[in-house]
């Protein structure tokens, strides 16, 4: 068994019994896409909602709108069935309160989550489980064997399985 780690802006792909993980998500969102029959899946570690807001787009995996089609392509190339793909998502927290900051009172975490949901929907992929928002960091581990996404909540030392 190998554990593959998706760093910020990366997409990792594997097949059972591999495990996919993403460490210390703050406002970032982790998207686990998988085919439960072939047990093939990917994990994307998305930093920002839309690539169109930026002049320089360096990695497809960094933005929700470009990461999702790319993750689908990679997962299908690995042998997953496009029609069976489903998703579990986690992350999108708001680590700081952000009070009184002039035009930057934007909450990246919730914009990320919103964008991920919208782009998954546009691509016809159902979200079967999620754990998003709130104000703590998360480390996630996705087991391709069981299709369980385990979430360790930062300072709180709690583990949740979805």
């Amino acid at each position, binding site marked *: 068994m190998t554990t593959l780690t998706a*760093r*910020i*802006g990366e997409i990792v792909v594997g097949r059972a019994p591999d495990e996919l993980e993403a*460490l*210390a*998500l*703050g*406002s*970032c969102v982790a998207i686990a896409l998988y085919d439960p029959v072939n047990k093939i899946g990917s994990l994307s570690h998305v*930093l*920002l909602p839309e690539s169109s*807001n*930026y*002049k*320089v787009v*360096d990695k497809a995996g*960094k*933005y929700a709108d470009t990461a999702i089609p790319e993750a689908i392509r990679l997962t299908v190339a690995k042998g997953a069935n496009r029609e069976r793909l489903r998703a579990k998502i986690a992350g999108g*927290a*708001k*680590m*700081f*309160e*952000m*009070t*009184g*900051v*002039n*035009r*930057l009172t*934007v909450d*990246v*975490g919730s914009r*990320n989550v919103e964008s991920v949901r919208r782009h998954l929907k546009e691509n016809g992929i159902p979200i079967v489980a999620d754990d998003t928002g709130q*104000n*703590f*960091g*998360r*480390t996630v581990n996705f087991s391709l064997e069981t299709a369980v996404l385990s979430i360790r909540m*930062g*300072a*709180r*030392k709690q583990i949740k399985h979805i």
Partner: protein
Amino acid sequence: MRDYEDFTETGFSEMEIEVLQEISNIGVGHAATALSQLLHRRVDMSIPYVEVVNYDKISERLIGSDEAIVSSVLVDTYSVDDPEKMLNFLLIFDDKSSKNVLSILRTGEPPQDLSELDEVSMSIIEETGNILLLHTISAINTFSGTKWFPSAPQQSIDMLGAIIDEIIGRDSGEHTKFLLVECDVFTDEETLKGMILIIPNEGALKLIMTKLYGEDFFEMME
């Protein structure tokens, strides 16, 4: 002589980096004095070290792990003359330093775990961080004639990677490299290690340069 290769990659000129290092030195020096008054003990500091770090390497560089639990205080400042220009200051105390701040400033047993801090302890860390950062900011303003106006401090005690995440994501996704100003502050009995990240947005460093060297500085450089 410092190797400037990394710096020029970021679009900052050598001179800008030197100025940043100098204002950080002045800023953190004032912060150490403030800490010394707050703690009533002698405080020594190291010379601040300015470094450019890629966004996916910051946690590794700072603590060695994305998942390390740290306490952090963020103060955003914006220029009074042009609120579009922002300079953000993030102070990080690692696990040990956070506990040391508490054992110096409050009575009773030091906490076992940063995740179980009570309100008073959290507020002590936040205020200590705020005082250090405000002194840093005020020294930078005095030295360079800029008017960086601080907003209220914001605190987060969590995994370092998650904290950095938010900082990278929220203001401009075009930053892939950050200027890191690291400074160690030592007291007699307990060691505190404070790390300060200074994150200038587009134009912020330019504003400082213009204040220091005059309006025609950038024309002269061209």
